[in-house]
């Protein structure tokens, strides 16, 4: 039978399962907070229940019995919880978190190999443990409410429970009847529901045929402490009918009106032919690899365009003007369309960093829990968009930074209270877009890093000489040196043998930059600056000593032409004056050990590059122009080469090296004093 190809179906399953788990995680965090404050939103509980329920359903279909069993147990507990048969408690929330963690591990494991399994017995036992409490004789109660059976018959068990809860709390049960145009009923209904939710609880929404064709009616079952008159006033619509229900109302609500709206017969002529499988759903899930190969094709097209432009030039040089003009026209049209295509594909790759932050929320909870520390998380700018691949690669370094912050930064409660700080520590994850870059700040309000201690340790480890003078920034940069953090002082949580140098390498591999700032006693901030996308970049093509290089244009702030004589040397570093500030210069021939041809006479060109707050001038012999290019990695074998981010094809079968601006800058600016602008 023509089932979905197994691997694709499973990928779809895993994708959806991950989504559900992330949502569940966020909801559980909200639930935990609600529990602490003694307020639990029934919609939230229901949403968590639905998550576990969906996961059980789909994993069962794929034969992942272990996921299904665990989700089933969670669902049971959540069902009792939302039906009020079990009371919410801190322990219960922790058990749910534990179960979710196991679920998440199972799903990830299945992604590697379908045979992956875990011992579920301990989790299941804990779930069973908190699952107890008695059921109520609900049917009788409901029957006593004197509500139209037509309404009662469509309530799910959960809705019945909400109805009874409202009744027990002495709220008025009302029926709100209203009809909308078929074209816009969902927005209209959402507006009405929003108004109603402010004053009570919408228990169910029953659609019924409208009085006129093209309209659809709804009967909402509503629990509120407001009166019918108040609700009518709040709705502010003449066509809304609000009735009191239940034992307080003598008359039962009238039956929903039947039919009257004639459905348009579907055009017979347009049918027939092949099976149509239209989906009304507006979103698609796409494998990032597919987008990547699409992006590569776009890249190749960009190169083909360059090749055609070159042909046009050749034709012109050969004297065939007419052909040259026609070709150029075609190239321009192609260029515009390619721009649109490129932009379109790029946009599809963009995802909000919120997805990544949500994962981090879970890490914070878990690590804080393991450490017995109280940590809140403050997320801002979650809708800032970033290339999906960059985000994937950012996940590990960010996780490490957060572990570090909780492990070493946030103090235990007693220490915080003694220092006059709030008992609960805060980890802030802020994202924002600055031009072509996304800046992600991770801040903690912990004990901070003492620069003097860092300096002493660097000396101890032989990373700097005794008595070296360093600025604050330079001192903090020492944290990123390989061999700075060692195993003996890294706890098992943030440990795993990964130091901040690895974090920095990971960020550099994404053409990004990371900086630390800290105030002892107040906290530490790590700032990560990343390009929005790596896929296709505009680059400045430069020539130095007969070699051609590309500098990503998003890093180039300006280009200057200066007299070689204006270059001064301060403390063995070449600098120039740039608008009242000092710009340190970098000569690529020194970095790449190029044979020096002619230099330091006449005019030189400087490409001023900047990342975050720092600037550097790269000295070049010639500026050759701008070009779009697709950067390809040099591969692991050449990953040790410093200062190079990758290679790109220029379209004329020539390969060009792309400079790693972040890497060059940190190398050039580290260890030297006071060259910053």
């Amino acid at each position, binding site marked *: 039978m023509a089932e979905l190809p197994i691997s694709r179906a499973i990928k779809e399953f895993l994708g959806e399962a991950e989504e559900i788990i992330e949502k569940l995680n966020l909801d559980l965090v909200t639930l935990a907070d609600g529990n602490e404050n003694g307020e639990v939103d029934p919609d939230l509980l229901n949403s968590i229940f639905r998550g576990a*329920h969906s996961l059980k359903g789909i994993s069962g279909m794929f034969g992942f019995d272990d996921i299904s069993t665990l989700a089933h147990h969670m669902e049971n507990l959540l069902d009792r919880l939302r039906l009020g048969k079990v009371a919410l408690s801190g322990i219960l929330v922790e058990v749910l978190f534990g179960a979710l963690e196991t679920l998440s591990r199972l799903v990830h494991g299945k992604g590697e190999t379908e045979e992956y399994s875990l011992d579920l017995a301990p989790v299941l036992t804990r779930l069973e443990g908190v699952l107890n409490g008695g059921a109520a004789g609900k049917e009788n109660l409901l029957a006593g409410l004197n509500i139209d059976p037509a309404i009662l*018959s469509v*309530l799910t068990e959960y809705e019945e429970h909400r109805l009874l809860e409202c009744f027990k709390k002495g709220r008025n049960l009302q029926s709100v009847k209203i009809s909308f145009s078929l074209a816009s009923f969902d927005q209209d209904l959402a507006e009405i529901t929003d108004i109603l939710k402010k004053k009570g609880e919408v228990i169910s929404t029953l659609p019924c045929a409208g009085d006129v064709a093209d309209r659809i009616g709804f009967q909402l079952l509503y629990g509120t402490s407001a009166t019918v008159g108040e609700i009518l006033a709040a709705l502010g619509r003449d066509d809304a009918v609000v009735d009191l229900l239940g034992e307080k109302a003598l008359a039962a609500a009238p039956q929903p009106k039947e039919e009257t709206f004639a459905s348009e017969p579907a055009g017979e002529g347009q049918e027939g032919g*092949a099976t*149509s499988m239209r989906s009304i759903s507006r979103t698609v899930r796409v494998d990032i690899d597919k987008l990547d190969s699409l992006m590569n094709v776009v890249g190749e097209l960009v190169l083909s365009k360059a090749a055609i432009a070159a042909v046009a030039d050749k034709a012109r040089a050969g004297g065939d003007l007419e052909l040259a003009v026609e070709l150029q026209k075609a190239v321009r049209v192609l260029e515009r369309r390619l721009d649109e295509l490129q932009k379109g594909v790029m946009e599809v790759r963009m995802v909000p960093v919120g997805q990544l932050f949500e994962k981090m929320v879970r890490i914070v909870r878990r690590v804080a829990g393991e450490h017995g520390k109280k940590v809140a998380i403050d997320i801002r700018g979650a809708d800032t968009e970033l290339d999906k691949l960059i985000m994937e690669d950012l996940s590990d370094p960010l996780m490490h930074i957060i572990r570090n912050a909780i492990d070493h930064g946030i103090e235990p409660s007693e220490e915080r209270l003694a220092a006059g700080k709030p008992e609960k520590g805060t980890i802030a994850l802020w994202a924002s877009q600055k031009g072509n870059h996304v800046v992600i700040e991770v801040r903690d309000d912990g004990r901070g890093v003492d620069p003097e201690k860092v300096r002493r340790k660097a000396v101890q480890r032989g990373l700097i000489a005794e008595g070296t003078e360093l600025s604050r920034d330079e001192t903090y940069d020492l944290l990123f040196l390989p061999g700075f953090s060692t195993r003996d002082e890294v706890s098992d949580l943030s440990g795993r043998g990964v130091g901040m140098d690895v974090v920095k390498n990971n960020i550099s591999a994404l053409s990004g930059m990371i900086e630390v700032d800290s105030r002892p006693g107040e906290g530490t901030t790590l700032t990560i600056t990343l390009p929005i996308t790596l896929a296709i970049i505009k680059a400045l093509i430069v020539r130095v000593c007969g070699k051609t290089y590309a500098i990503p244009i998003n890093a180039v702030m300006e280009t200057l032409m200066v007299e070689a004589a204006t270059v001064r040397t301060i403390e063995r570093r070449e600098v120039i004056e740039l608008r009242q500030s000092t710009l340190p210069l970098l000569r690529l021939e020194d970095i790449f050990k190029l044979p020096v041809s002619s230099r330091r006479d006449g005019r030189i060109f400087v490409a001023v590059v900047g990342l975050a707050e720092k600037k550097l001038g790269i000295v070049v012999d010639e500026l050759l122009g701008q070009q779009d290019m697709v950067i390809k990695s040099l591969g692991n074998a050449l990953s040790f080469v410093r200062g190079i981010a990758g290679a790109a094809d220029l379209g004329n079968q020539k390969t060009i090296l792309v400079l790693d601006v972040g890497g060059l800058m940190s190398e050039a600016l580290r260890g030297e004093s006071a060259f910053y602008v």
Partner: protein
Amino acid sequence: MLKKILIAEDSPTMRSLIVSTIAALGDFEIVEAANGFEALRILPREKVDLVITDINMPDINGLELVSFIKGNANYKATPLFIISTEGSERDREKGLSLGADAYLTKPFSPQELQALIVRFLGQEA
């Protein structure tokens, strides 16, 4: 003329499983709705020969959809299956008493669904 089947189900994975199960049976025109509202929008526009709905959906629940369809002269003759995860016996009873023609419990086998479709729509292709 191809028979038209409307699937109302909020899980995309579940939807595509149902779709592939139906496609394996023969040629049908399949219309998908990711929630109850989409289903409500589709019903007056398309002449649907069979409705398959989930119970737990984000906006209106499956029972409400069943009540709408079976309580409306234009649609009440349309066969309707509920597919839901086992759990509430009461939800199942209610679904059937509201007029649903069949109730399938997840996980169900493709053969179960296919047999039901054949029973209500006849052998196709």
